C-alpha cells in the first residue's frame, strides 16, 4: 500500500505489544500495603544485616514526609501506594546450578522473549544475570569474572557477602531523600544487581541483566550499584520487556554508578515495558533515578533506548566531580499511542576541565507526548567546563507532541555551552521517495527512524544495537500490511 497521512496513522495504531503474555508461576507475594512492618519484613526475607534494615527504615521515614513530584510534563492517575504489594519472588528457590533445575515455564517465558539463557550463554562474552520479578534466578560466567576479582551478583547477595562495599557506596550518589521515588526505592527495594570492578581491571565481557515485571500488581523496585575502582573499565547492559497487564504497574528503580579516578563505565539500557494498549489503558509507570559520579579523569556514558512504559520519568545523570572527568548521555525515546515520556539528563560540572555531551533523539507517534528535559550546571569552580547538547525530535502524524526543556546554569565565565535542537516530521514526500525506489512504507519508516537515531544506536554494543533496532521497528511499525 502506498502512503498517506491517514494510513500511516492507522498503521501505527495497529501495533500490538509483542510480549503481552503472562507467566503463571507460583510466587511468594506479600499482601498489598506499606508500613514499617512491611519494610522490616522485606529486609528479613532477604536475610539482611541490621544496618540495612535500619537504612531502609530511615528511607521510609523520609518517604512518608515527601510528596510525589508534579513538575514533569506527564499526566497520569497517581498510584495508590497502599494498593501495591511490595514483595514478590518466584517460589522455586534456591538458585540453580544448571538450567535443568529451573522451572520450565520460566525458561519458556525467556524463550518467547527471545532471550533464552541458552542463547545468551552462547553469545560471545556476555554474562547474563536474569532478574525475574525480584529474585535473581540464573547467573552465569561467574567463574570467569571471579578470576579477575570482578563481583557481579544480585544486590541481596552483595549485602550478605560484601557488606563493606555496599555499606560504603549505597546511597552515596542517590541519597535516600533525593526524591520521592528514590526514597521509596531505598525503603522497599527488592533486588537488583551489584557490580564491582577492582583497580586496573578491564572487564572482559559486557555485563548484562534482563529485568522483568511479572506479577500482577507487584511494584518492582530494583536497586543497582556499579563500582569501578581506579583505572578500571566496565560496560553494563540492561534490557527489559514485561508481560502486558490491565492495571498500571509501578517501577521505581535506582541505579548508582561510581567511577573512581581514571575509571570508565558504559551503561546501556534498552527498555520495552508494556506501554499500555491503543486506548492508553494499562502500561508501566517508570519512575527511575539513575545517577553516576565521576572522580578524576573518569568517564561515564549513559546510552538508552526507551520504547516502552505508559509514563516515563527518567534522567540518567552525571556528577562530574573530579577534574577532567567526562559525562555522556545518548538517548532515543520513542512514544506511541498514549505514551508519555519526560526524559533527559543532568550534567553537573564540579571539577575543572570537565566535559559533557548530550545527544537526545525523541520520536513521537500516535497521541503521545515526548519531552526532553535536561540540566547543564557549571559550578563556580569548574573552570573550562564544556558541554554540547543536541536534541532532535521526529514527529509522526498530527496528534503527537514533542517538547524540549533545556536548563542551563553557568556560574563560571570560562564555561562553553552549546545547545542545538531540531524538530522534523516524517513527510509524505520522504515516504513517496522511498516507495519510488521500491521500498515499501513499513521499511521506509524503519529506514528513516534508524537514520534519525543512528548517532545513538552507534553508541550501543553491537549485539544490543541489533536488538534496539528491532525494538524501534516493533514500536513504530508493528503489523503494517
Amino acid at each position: 500500500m502506498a502512503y498517506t497521512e491517514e494510513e500511516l496513522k492507522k498503521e501505527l495504531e495497529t501495533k500490538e505489544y509483542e510480549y503481552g503474555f503472562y507467566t503463571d508461576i507460583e510466587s511468594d507475594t506479600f499482601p498489598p500495603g506499606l508500613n514499617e512492618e512491611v519494610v522490616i519484613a522485606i529486609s528479613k526475607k532477604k536475610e539482611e544485616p541490621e544496618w540495612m534494615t535500619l537504612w531502609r527504615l530511615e528511607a521510609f521515614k523520609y518517604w512518608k514526609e515527601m510528596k510525589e513530584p508534579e513538575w514533569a510534563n506527564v499526566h497520569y492517575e497517581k498510584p495508590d501506594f497502599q494498593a501495591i504489594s511490595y514483595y514478590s519472588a518466584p517460589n522455586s528457590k534456591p538458585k540453580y546450578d544448571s538450567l535443568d533445575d529451573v522451572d520450565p515455564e520460566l525458561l519458556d517465558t525467556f524463550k518467547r522473549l527471545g532471550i533464552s539463557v541458552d542463547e545468551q550463554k552462547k553469545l560471545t562474552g556476555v554474562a547474563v544475570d536474569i532478574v525475574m520479578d525480584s529474585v535473581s534466578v540464573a547467573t552465569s560466567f561467574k567463574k570467569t569474572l571471579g578470576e579477575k576479582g570482578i563481583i557481579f551478583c544480585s544486590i541481596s547477595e552483595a549485602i550478605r557477602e560484601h557488606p563493606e562495599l555496599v555499606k560504603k557506596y549505597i546511597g552515596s550518589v542517590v541519597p535516600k531523600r533525593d526524591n520521592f521515588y528514590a526514597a521509596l526505592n531505598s525503603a522497599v527495594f527488592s533486588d537488583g544487581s551489584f557490580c564491582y570492578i577492582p583497580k586496573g581491571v578491564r572487564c572482559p565481557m559486557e555485563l548484562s541483566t534482563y529485568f522483568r515485571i511479572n506479577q500482577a500488581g507487584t511494584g518492582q523496585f530494583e536497586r543497582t550499584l556499579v563500582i569501578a575502582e581506579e583505572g578500571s573499565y566496565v560496560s553494563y547492559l540492561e534490557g527489559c520487556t514485561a508481560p502486558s497487564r490491565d492495571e498500571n504497574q509501578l517501577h521505581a528503580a535506582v541505579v548508582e554508578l561510581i567511577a573512581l579516578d581514571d575509571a570508565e563505565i558504559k551503561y546501556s539500557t534498552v527498555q520495552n515495558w508494556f506501554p499500555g494498549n491503543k486506548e492508553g489503558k494499562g502500561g508501566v509507570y517508570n519512575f527511575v533515578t539513575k545517577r553516576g559520579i565521576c572522580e578524576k579523569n573518569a568517564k561515564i556514558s549513559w546510552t538508552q533506548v526507551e520504547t516502552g512504559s505508559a509514563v516515563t520519568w527518567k534522567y540518567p545523570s552525571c556528577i562530574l566531580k573530579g577534574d577532567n572527568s567526562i559525562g555522556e548521555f545518548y538517548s532515543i525515546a520513542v512514544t506511541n499511542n498514549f505514551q508519555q515520556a519526560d526524559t533527559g539528563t543532568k550534567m553537573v560540572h564540579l571539577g575543572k576541565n570537565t566535559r559533557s555531551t548530550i545527544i537526545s533523539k525523541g520520536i513521537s507517534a500516535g497521541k503521545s507526548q515526548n519531552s526532553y528535559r535536561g540540566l547543564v550546571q557549571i559550578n563556580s569552580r569548574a573552570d573550562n567546563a564544556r558541554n554540547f547538547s543536541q536534541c532532535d525530535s521526529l514527529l509522526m502524524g498530527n496528534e503527537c507532541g514533542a517538547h524540549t526543556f533545556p536548563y542551563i546554569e553557568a556560574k563560571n565565565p570560562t564555561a562553553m555551552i552549546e545547545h542545538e535542537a531540531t524538530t522534523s516530521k516524517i513527510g509524505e514526500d520522504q515516504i513517496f521517495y522511498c516507495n519510488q525506489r521500491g521500498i515499501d512504507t513499513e521499511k521506509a519508516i524503519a529506514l528513516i527512524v534508524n537514520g534519525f537515531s543512528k548517532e545513538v544506536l552507534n553508541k550501543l554494543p553491537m549485539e544490543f544495537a541489533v536488538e534496539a533496532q528491532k525494538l524501534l521497528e516493533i514500536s513504530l511499525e508493528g503489523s503494517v500490511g
Partner: protein
Amino acid sequence: MLKIKNLHASVEGKKILKGVNLEVNAGEVHAIMGPNGSGKSTLASVIAGKEEFEVTQGSIEFEGEDLDETSPEERAHKGVFLSFQYPVEIPGVSVTNFMKTAINESRKAKGLEDMPAKEMLKLIREKSEMLDIDRKFLSRSLNEGFSGGEKKRNEIFQMAMLEPKLSILDETDSGLDIDALRIVANGVNKLRSADKATILITHYQRLLEYIIPDFVHVIHDGKIVKSGGKELALELEEKGYDWLKQEATV
C-alpha cells in the same frame, strides 16, 4: 512499453491532466516540454503512482499491464524510475545504505535473495566510476547538504544502480550549471540502450542539446498539444510557448 490513454488526473479536486495520450517504446527518448503549470511534473508523478493524484479517467499501461491498482513500490519493482525534481533528504541514511535497501527490496519482491555484499560493492564501484562519482559521496547522508548538482547526480547514480526499464527525468536540468548539466547528461547517455526508454521532462531546450530526443511533445493545460522530432524543441526555443498556447485555444 508505456501506453497512456486519455489520462485525466486531479489533485484535491483540481483537474490538472485533461486527456494525455502518449506511447513510448523501448529504445526511445521522449522529451516533454511545456510552460510552468502545464502538468509536466504531474504526469511524471502520476506515472510513478503518487497517491495524492487521483486518476479520474483513462489508463496507464506498462508492458501491457494496467497500472491503476499498482502501488508506487510495485511500479518501481516493475522497472519504473523517477528522477525527482526536488530529491528529499533522509538524514542518517547513507547513499550506499539506501541503495542497498532499494535493490534488496526489489529483489525480495521478485523472490530473490539479498544481493551478496561482494556483488553489491562491485556494482557500486562500476556505476560510481561510470558517473565519475567520488566514493566519499556514497557514505554521506542521502541528499543532506548536497548541492543542487550533487542531488541530481545522485538521482542518476540511483538510476544506474537500479537499471530501470523506463526512466522519467523530472526537470533534471533545473538548478544545474553547465558543467553539472554536462556530467548528468553524459550519465544519461551512457545508460541509453535498445531495451530501455527515457522520458525527459524539461522547461528548456538546453538539456536537449546534450541528450538528443527521438520525440518532442509539448504539453499545455493538461494536454499534449503538439508532437514532433527534435527540431520542435528548437522551434520552441526560438518562438517560446505562446504561439502554441494560441494554437491550442483556437
